[in-house]
Each structure stands twice: as C-alpha cells, then as structure tokens.
C-alpha cells in the first residue's frame, strides 16, 4: 500500500498531512495521454500499451481504489521513463526537432501589459511583504491560522512557484526584496570575479533549505518573520555591496530558483512583451527568445552582455543539481529511513542540526558526482571528444522539469487543501475565525506520480533535443543518452519511493 507524503511542510494542528491514495499508474497513463500535444504520440502509444491493465482496474469492475505494491509502483515508474526514452528514439529528424522548439507565438499587446502589470504586481508584492511582517508579529500563534505562515508556505512557496513553471516567471516583477533595492544605485562597491559564477546562490539555496528543515520557520510565525526580515536586510546590504544586478544574477537564491523554473514555462519574456513557446522550449532551444530582460544574461559594469564563461555555466549546473537535490532532501528528511539514521546519532550525542547539515551536503555531493559521472560516460557511449564539463553544461537544463514535476507532486495537494484557509486569513488577518481546510478526494493521490512522471518525460524529451544539437547523425545522439536515461530511471524510482513514504514526525529539533 502506498501513501502520499508531505515531508517537512508546516504540520498544521489537527490536520493530517497524509492522504491515502489509490495508485493506479495505468489510469495515470491514460491521463497523461489526454494532456499531451506533440508528446501525444509518445504518450498515446504508452496508453495503448497500458489499456489491458486499465481494463482490469477500471470503473464497473472494481469499486474500491486500486492499490499497487510499492515494488510494482516503482518498477512502473522506471519503466515509463525507459519506454519514453525508447519512443523518443523514433524522432530523429533534425528539422522536426528544431522546428518544434523554435515555434513561437508572439502575444500581442503584451508590452503594455508588462509595463503596467509589473508595476501593479510589484505593489502586490510589497503589500504582501508588509502583511507577512505585520501579521507574523501581531497575528495568532497557531500556524494554520496565521496569515504570514499561510502566505509564505501555501500561497507563495507552493502556489506561486507552481505558477512559475506552469505559466511563466513573474518573480522579477513581484519580488518585494528587489522593490526594496530600487532606491539603491545600480552599481555596487565591488565587482564579483568571474569564477564566482552563481555559486553564492547555490550556497544560499542549501542554507535556506537547511534552515527550513531544522528550525520552526515552517510553523512559528515569529521565527518566519525574523527570517524574512533578515533576508530583506541581506538583500539591501548585498545589493549595495555587489550591485543590484550582480546580487540578483549571482547571489540571490530565490530569484535564481524562479529564473530556472521559469524556463520550463510556456510564457517567456521577450524584448517587446511576451511570447508563447512549447513547454520546455526555453530549455532545449538553440536560441532562446530574446533578452530574458530581468535575469537571463549576465552583464558587466558597462552593461554589455558578458560572454558566458565555462566557470559561469558550470556554476549554473551546480545550482540546477542543487535545486533537484533539495526537493528530494525535503521529502527524505520526513521518512522513517532518515529517522532510523538520525535518532541513533542524536542519542549518541551528535548534534541533530549538524546531522541534517551533513546529510544535506553529502546528498548534494552525491547528486553532483552522479551527474558528472553520467556526463563523463557520455563521452564513451556517444563516441565523442566533447569535454565532460561541456556535456554536463549542455544537458543540465533537462533536469529542471524533473525538479518541477517533483515540486508539483509534493505541493499541489498541500496548496489546494490550505488555499481556503489562506483566503479566510487574508480577509481577517489578526483574528481569523474558523478557517476551512479542503479535503481532497482519494483519486487525487494519483496527481503526485503523474506529475513526477510528466516531469521526467519532459526531461527525456529536452535531453533528446539537446543531443541532436550536440551530435551528428542519428545513432550518435541516441546512444549518447544512455547514461542519462539510466540515471533518470534510478532517480524516478527514488522520487516515487519518497513520494510514497508516510510522513514521519522526528521530534529532535
């Protein structure tokens, strides 16, 4: 029997974060087929193959939710990824691949929308920031009734992040921290050297996740508000020291997360407004739209586009892998397996916070090493002289949809359940009355695995397209993918396993 898990999300009192879920991946396959377009061929065939299984557990034949043993559930997940790779190997025409990703629809009237919309949205952002600070200090102490906690964790971290990879990145407009720094001069006191790349944002991301896991920031409004204020202060100080642009591009972890997720989305920014692209196109295409106005290109002090150096590109790989790792880590620290590791350590006298930090860094190092090893192996299977860093850099964008899929799996049920509470708290922040929590139907448990699988399938597709850019002929690009597919199959299994674990309370911190 498999159950959904909600990791280290705020545990609201009296509400179970767990849900029993009917895990029928066969039914999931049919769902995937319904929502694919170009991928419809790939996934439609998959659905065909699963039809006999749907017949077995379909409506009318079996009235109870169908539950799969874990091993079968994981095997199916891995199998879907392997099969989707095999199916993409039938798409070998270069013109088709390039044409698919370069299809763009320029949206009319969006230049004005961007100008005015971003001003409005910036106001909303600042208002939200003020509300969080005010209600965090003055509002009720219970997490599930405090607007600050609900705004930050439900509306922003769950809901807004999903909107970024599903629709488009609106953070540059919404970002209240950036709005705060608009009064500062654009240039900083020091120039960050090239080799620094975006490593500071990776360090920032790891630090934020560690903090979220070891402190009560997820449930204590006071602590949350303090962290938010500290972040604001750091932003102002940092922007003053290194310059606004360098801060956002290289140091700010939050802006970087949204910038990366935004590349999965169908709506992208251009010089004159917005354009619609195929999902994943901004990850795979040779020429991504035009200037990603507020954060795609690094500029040096003179405002000229700096060349993308290998140091910078490698640091970007480091960030993307970190993003993937922290989504898994978030799930991992709420499992019984982790409890069985950390509790004995704590009882032996080892400080738990350090244990969490150690696990975070060890896991990150493992993920990075695994990705780098796979990239190195591509030199052999793809028969290429391209250097390992070049390969790693070229294929890193394919990892982003995987992180997005996992995020959606984890946070969509959570977001929907607490959205009514968030709305209620907005209407009466300081003394909210009875707040509603949505109870989701059983079949909703299927959303998780479907999201994870969709993310992986999109990742396979993006990697496939990239391979055709890098390599020649038709067999070389396909063979070059073997190491990545292997890693992805293993990672899918791990992700699905994490998703299926019941959430465990580890009362050490």
């Amino acid at each position, binding site marked *: 029997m498999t159950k959904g898990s909600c990791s280290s999300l705020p545990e609201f009192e009296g509400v179970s974060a767990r849900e029993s879920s009917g895990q029928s991946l066969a039914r999931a396959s049919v769902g995937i087929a319904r929502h694919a377009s170009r991928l419809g061929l790939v996934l439609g065939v998959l659905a065909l193959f699963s039809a006999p299984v749907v017949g077995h557990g379909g409506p009318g034949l079996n009235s109870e939710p169908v539950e799969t043993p874990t091993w079968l559930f994981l095997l199916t997940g891995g*199998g879907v990824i392997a099969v989707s790779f*095999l199916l993409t190997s039938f798409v070998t025409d270069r013109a088709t691949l390039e044409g698919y990703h370069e299809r763009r629809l320029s949206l009319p009237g969006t230049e004005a929308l961007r100008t005015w919309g971003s001003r409005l949205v910036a106001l909303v952002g600042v208002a939200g920031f003020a509300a969080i600070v005010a209600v965090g200090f003055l509002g009720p102490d219970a997490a599930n009734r405090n607007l600050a906690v609900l705004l930050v964790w439900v509306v922003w971290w769950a809901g807004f992040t999903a909107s970024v990879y599903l629709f488009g990145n609106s953070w540059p407009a919404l970002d209240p921290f950036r709005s705060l720094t608009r009064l500062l001069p654009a240039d900083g006191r020091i120039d960050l050297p090239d080799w620094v790349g975006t490593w500071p944002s990776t360090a920032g991301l790891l630090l934020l996740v560690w903090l979220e896991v070891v402190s009560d920031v997820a449930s204590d409004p006071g602590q949350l508000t303090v962290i938010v204020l500290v972040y604001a202060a750091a932003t102002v100080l940092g922007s003053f020291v290194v310059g606004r642009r360098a801060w956002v591009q290289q140091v700010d972890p939050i802006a970087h997360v949204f910038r990366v997720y935004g590349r999965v989305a169908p709506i992208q920014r251009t010089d004159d407004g917005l354009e619609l692209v195929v999902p994943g196109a901004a990850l795979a295409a040779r*020429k991504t739209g035009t200037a990603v106005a507020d954060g795609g290109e690094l500029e040096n002090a003179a405002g000229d586009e700096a060349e993308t150096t290998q140091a910078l590109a490698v640091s970007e790989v480091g960030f993307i892998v970190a993003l993937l790792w922290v989504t898994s880590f978030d799930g991992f620290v709420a499992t019984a397996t982790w409890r069985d590791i950390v509790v004995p350590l704590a009882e032996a006298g080892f400080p738990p916070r350090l244990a969490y930090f150690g696990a975070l860094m060890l896991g990150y190092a493992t993920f990075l090493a695994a990705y780098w090893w796979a990239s190195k192996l591509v030199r052999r299977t793809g028969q290429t002289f*391209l250097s390992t860093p070049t390969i790693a850099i070229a294929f890193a964008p394919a990892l982003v949809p995987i992180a997005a899929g996992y995020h959606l799996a984890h946070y969509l049920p959570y977001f929907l359940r607490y959205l009514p509470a968030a709305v209620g708290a907005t209407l009466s922040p300081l003394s909210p009355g009875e707040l509603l929590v949505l109870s989701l139907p059983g079949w909703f448990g299927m959303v998780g695995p479907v999201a994870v699988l969709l993310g992986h399938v999109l990742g396979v597709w993006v990697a496939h397209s990239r391979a055709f850019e890098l390599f020649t002929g038709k067999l*070389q690009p396909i063979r070059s993918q073997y190491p990545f597919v292997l890693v992805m199959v293993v990672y899918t299994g791990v992700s699905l396993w994490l998703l299926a674990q019941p959430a465990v309370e580890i009362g050490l911190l």
Partner: protein
Amino acid sequence: MPNPTHSDRSSRPEAPRGHPTYEYAVDSDADYCPTCGQPFRTDHLLTLHRGERHPETLDEAEQEHYDEVRDEEDEQLFIFHLKVVAAITLVTFVFIYSYTFVWL
C-alpha cells in the same frame, strides 16, 4: 582577450545561447574536420558531420561517400528501431504480467 564566441573557425558548431563555446578533450587518435576543426573519434562520424554542417565544402567523391554513409546509418537506425520495438514489447509484457498475475 579574444572573445571565444567569435573564433576564426567560422563554422564552429554553434553552441546554444548562454552556453560557452564547446570544448573538446582529445584523448586518443582523432579525425579533424577540415572546415571547423572539430575532432571526431571515427571517420563515419566525421563524414556525417561534414555532410550535415558543411555540405558546400564537399566535392563529388566526398558527396557520394556521405550519401553512402548516410544510407548505412539509416540501415543501422532501422535495426536499432527494431530492437527498440522488441524492448518495448518485452517491457509491456512484463508489466501486463505483473499487474495481472503477480499483483491481483
């Protein structure tokens, strides 16, 4: 400092925007493309590359050789696809069996 994206090798494979120029680590005998200098492990791959990216530099004989190599590749691809279909069939069978007999 010379900008590596404007190298004198005019038809160097163009890296995607935001990607630094492709780097190569040559650790064994390589065949180099006469036009752009990119190294290849086999002559087969070099021929395919030249036909794809620098078709205008090929003479008659080289064009014929490219056509031959491409045909050979198409044949190999067909056989590969047969194996893929077999693999998909096997995987499907394993799942159908598992869901039908092992699980239920």
